[in-house]
């Protein structure tokens, strides 16, 4: 890619269409491999649905998520309330629809926080090497020694709970994997000939990082980001289930499962339905992540 930049302009122009062709072909190949498996397509559709539901929640939900109705407490499913109501008469379907907003928000923000910090640290560790690498990686080892849920629980509680602190806790919990992956990528790419070549033509550190290291470690990172969106949603649901996440009355899937626990015999759907939502969404992100891995894995290139 960057080799082209050093070529005379006329030559650059003459090869440009060809390069575009290759890109188009590559893109077609990736989408073909990815959506070739039905579960991956299904997963992508679930994610699309999640985004649409989250964005248009006020338009599609039949009630207000905080509107209580004392005449319809723990109502069974009916035409008025498709999934029934909870212990204060709030419409369950509406709350699941609104819960998707929290889940999507949590996924995106937590992965952004964790991903950016982790990738940054991983880049520094891998690029600098030596004792900087040792220190950063030992810190990461220590973070990885703790079960993610416990780490997030401790951080969220100590910071005082609430949406923002849960997001910070999730971000820190997710961060180590990015750091490890990035560091490994950088270490393996750093010794490649094209990096030596870039150095030889006088590229500085920043340029090497931005032009070579980042784009070339992108495929596995993309897979990790996709899967982690699901992981973050699951972790937030677990924290909310434990009563440590986002405080009520905000509709979160985890907290809904937890509150329905007490009314299992009256209306098990209060617990069951939000759990199905969590399962579907996490499964969808995992499947799409798997599909991306298959599609981007260079070892499979040419075979398919």
């Amino acid at each position, binding site marked *: 890619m960057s080799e082209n930049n050093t070529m005379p302009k006329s030559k650059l122009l003459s090869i440009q269409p060809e390069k575009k062709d290759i890109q188009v072909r590559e893109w077609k190949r990736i989408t073909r491999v990815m959506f070739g498996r039905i*579960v991956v397509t299904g997963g992508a559709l679930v994610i699309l649905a999640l985004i649409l539901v989250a964005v248009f929640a006020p338009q599609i939900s039949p009630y207000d998520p905080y509107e209580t109705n004392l005449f319809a407490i723990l109502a069974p499913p009916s035409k008025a309330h498709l999934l029934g109501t909870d212990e204060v008469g709030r419409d369950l379907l509406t709350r699941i629809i609104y819960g998707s907003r929290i889940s999507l928000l949590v996924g995106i923000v937590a992965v952004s926080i964790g991903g950016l910090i982790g990738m940054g640290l991983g880049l520094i560790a891998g690029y600098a090497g030596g004792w900087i690498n040792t220190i950063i990686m*030992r*810190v990461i*080892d*220590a*973070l*990885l*020694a*703790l*079960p*993610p*849920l*416990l*780490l997030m*629980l*401790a*951080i969220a*509680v*100590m*910071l*005082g709970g609430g949406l923002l602190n849960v997001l910070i806790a999730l971000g820190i919990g997710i961060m180590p994997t990015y750091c490890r992956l990035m560091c490994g990528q950088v270490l393996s790419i750093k010794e490649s000939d094209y990096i030596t070549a870039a150095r030889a033509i006088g590229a500085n550190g920043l340029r090497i990082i931005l032009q070579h290291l980042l784009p070339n470690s992108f495929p596995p990172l993309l897979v990790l980001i996709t899967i982690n969106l*699901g992981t973050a949603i*699951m972790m937030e*649901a*677990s924290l909310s*289930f*434990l*009563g*440590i996440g986002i405080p009520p009355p905000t509709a979160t899937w*985890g907290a809904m*499962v*937890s509150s*329905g*626990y007490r009314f*299992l*015999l009256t209306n*098990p759907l209060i*617990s*069951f339905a939000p*759990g199905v939502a*969590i*399962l579907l969404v*996490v*499964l969808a992100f*995992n*499947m799409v992540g798997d599909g991306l891995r298959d599609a981007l894995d260079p070892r499979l290139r040419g075979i398919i």
Partner: protein
Amino acid sequence: MLSFISRRIIHTIAVLFIVSFFSFLLLHIMPGDPAAAMLGIEAKKEEVEAMRKELGLDRPFLIQYGHWFANVLRGDLGKSLMYREPVANLFYARLPVTLYLSLLAFVISGILGISAGIFCAIKRGGFFDQIISISANIGIAIPMFWLGIIGIYLFGLKTGWLPIYGWTSPFDDFILSSKQALMPVLLLAVPGISILARQSRSSMLEVVRQDYIRTARSKGLSERIVLLRHALKNALIPIVTLMGLHIRIMVGGSVLVETVFSIPGMGFLLVGSAINKDFLVVQGGVLLIGSIVCVTNLLVDISYGWLDPRLRYE
């Protein structure tokens, strides 16, 4: 091998040190005064002052850490405000419960997960391969707490086959204990089974493609010997590294499982303490569990080096 082991031990000690620093730091990332936060809003000024003294918060940061660390080495993790008991005593009573459940789940998931994965790899593309692969994917994505509640609903409330909560020591009443532990242990094993099944399947498929397997086949060894002696042994190597990760998953899962089934183990204690702002218990729990994982990781690393001699000379 000896130098490999000693290098791993030094590495583990360094990591343990950082884990202890993180645990210490937890009390200090609190916005505001930890002593005041612990005692609640009704606390008198003198009480807060006394608490600050007790926690050593009036001293410089690093000295506090040194002091705290020295106490930890003596087994003193402070005193729980809620239970009015030393934190270490609380752990002493509850850790065996968590270890018992986790260990059982660990063994079950190891046996079931690895054999399912190997089976899938051998019968690749077949009906069972597909069923198991799909189940494994679901098993990874399923919220454990939710699955537990479904289990409680089906096997506890609807059929009455199993108790829905509680814990009895297997030494007091083995049958009741097993009945109570059955659902939690299986639940705890679900993510492990799923991850191991997937990993051992792909690891086995990777190995079967290697040249030495072709050689073994072409020299006329029976498929059984090829698979068991040549393929399986090599396929297991990457799975052993996963075991370290696995322990983390078990302990993390026990937080949820113990809460769902009201089992008085570490997870249940830590969640309760977190909700009730009993911060020293949370801090101690992070330290203890982190240390346990570090030490088991060390053992996994050593066994890995023993299985795969190439690693000793890295």
